Each structure stands twice: as structure tokens, then as C-alpha cells.
């Protein structure tokens, strides 16, 4: 068995077993009650259309089968919603071979109305 084949076999065995997505945050503002609506994602470089209040830096990392854009952005949105954010702005998505990370700034945007408590 060649070295590459062995590596591929091990990857194939291990990756599905550790397919997870983890999210965390660091507060840079004041959190609010959890937001129940859809959290808007604004990719880095896109204009932010409304005034906002910064709440936290939020980040989500997925591995294996969870290293996909929908899963990671979903985790980012959930983490932001928990803090009362209705948007995550400046979202940057960085992808590797077996994992991917999205990081952004969770905010309360004024134009989307007040956060609806859960």
C-alpha cells in the first residue's frame, strides 16, 4: 500500500467520525435577548446598508462533512442570534482541505427592527 493510499484511507475513516461545527464569540458590545428571526449575513467588502450596534466577534469552524458553507454560516447565524444580533457583517470565509472557518461581527441593525425575544 502506498503512503498516499494509506493517508487517504485514514482520512476517509477519521473524517466522518469528527464531522463537527463549533461556534464561539467574543463580546465587544452589549448582548441582547436572543433574536428569533433570520440573521442577515453581509460578506466582507459588501456595504452595510443600515446603522448598527456592534455586539461581538463571532466565529464558526466546521470539519469533515460540516466544512461546508451552509453549515458554517448556519452556526455563525445561530451564535449571533443567541446574543441578540440580527446580522453578521464583515463575514470572512476561509476554506482549507478538511475544515473551513467563517468569522464576522455580530451586530444589531436598526433597519431590521427590534430583536424579537424568543
Amino acid at each position: 500500500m502506498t503512503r498516499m493510499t494509506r493517508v487517504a484511507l485514514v482520512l476517509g475513516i477519521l473524517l466522518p467520525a469528527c464531522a463537527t461545527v463549533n461556534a464561539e464569540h467574543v463580546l465587544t458590545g452589549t448582548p441582547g435577548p436572543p433574536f428569533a428571526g433570520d440573521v442577515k449575513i453581509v460578506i466582507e467588502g459588501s456595504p452595510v446598508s443600515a446603522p448598527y450596534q456592534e455586539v461581538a466577534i463571532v466565529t464558526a469552524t466546521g470539519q469533515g462533512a460540516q466544512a461546508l458553507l451552509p453549515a458554517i454560516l448556519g452556526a455563525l447565524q445561530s451564535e449571533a442570534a443567541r446574543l441578540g444580533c440580527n446580522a453578521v457583517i464583515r463575514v470572512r470565509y476561509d476554506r482549507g482541505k478538511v475544515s473551513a472557518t467563517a468569522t464576522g461581527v455580530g451586530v444589531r441593525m436598526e433597519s431590521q427592527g427590534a430583536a424579537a425575544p424568543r
Partner: protein
Amino acid sequence: MSISATRDPAGGQEIGIVEAHGRRPQATAEALVAEFRSRVAMLGGDFGRIDDFATRHELRTESRDYECGGFETQMQTQSVVATGPDGSTAVTTEAVPVTTYVAKTCTEERQVEDATLTLVGRAFRTAKGSP
């Protein structure tokens, strides 16, 4: 000390560029921001602005040794001395199976991806933090 990822402090004086980075998930976002704060403070700042955050992914091969020995059976010859009823002795040689544990070390390789999160920004001194 205040930290922001979206705004500069009003009337603040920019005093330097600051970077903090760490390998995830061992280094949490909280720990990296704490490192960023301490670097702002080292420059004499009281406000840190995080301008950029990026994660770099790198694959590396990790190997580990493990015991993979097993039992092996080999045929060995043994001599048996038999004493007959008349007191005579006869030596016979026969092959018998002998099982022993044979130690062996195997190496397993796997690819692991490291993710390094880097925060880059600026340190400010605000009127509030001036001596």
C-alpha cells in the same frame, strides 16, 4: 480597554499596528482577543480596533507509533528421553508447535489540518486614557 471590530474611537490617536494569532481550536477567539488587548496595552493604548481577521489552513502529516505485535506459531524440534520397562533409554526427536508473542512496532500516518486565526488591527490612545 475597549475593543471594536467596526469603528475607530472618536478623537483617538493611532499609536501602532497590533497582531495576535494562534492555532485553533487550542487558542480560543477569547484568548486571541485577550492577546490583542495586551499588545494594545503594551503600546500604551486603551482602545484596540480589529481591522482584519483571517484563518489560514495548513495540512501536515502526523505519525504515531503503536504496538502491533501478534502471536506466531512455529514448529520446533524437541527430544524426549523415554525409559523402557527393562531400564533402557531411547531418545526420540519430534516436531511440536510452539506459540510465542512477537513484538512489532507499526507507524500510522494521518493528515491533520491546522487552522491559525490572525487578528490585525491598530492601537489607539483616547482622550479618556491620556495621562
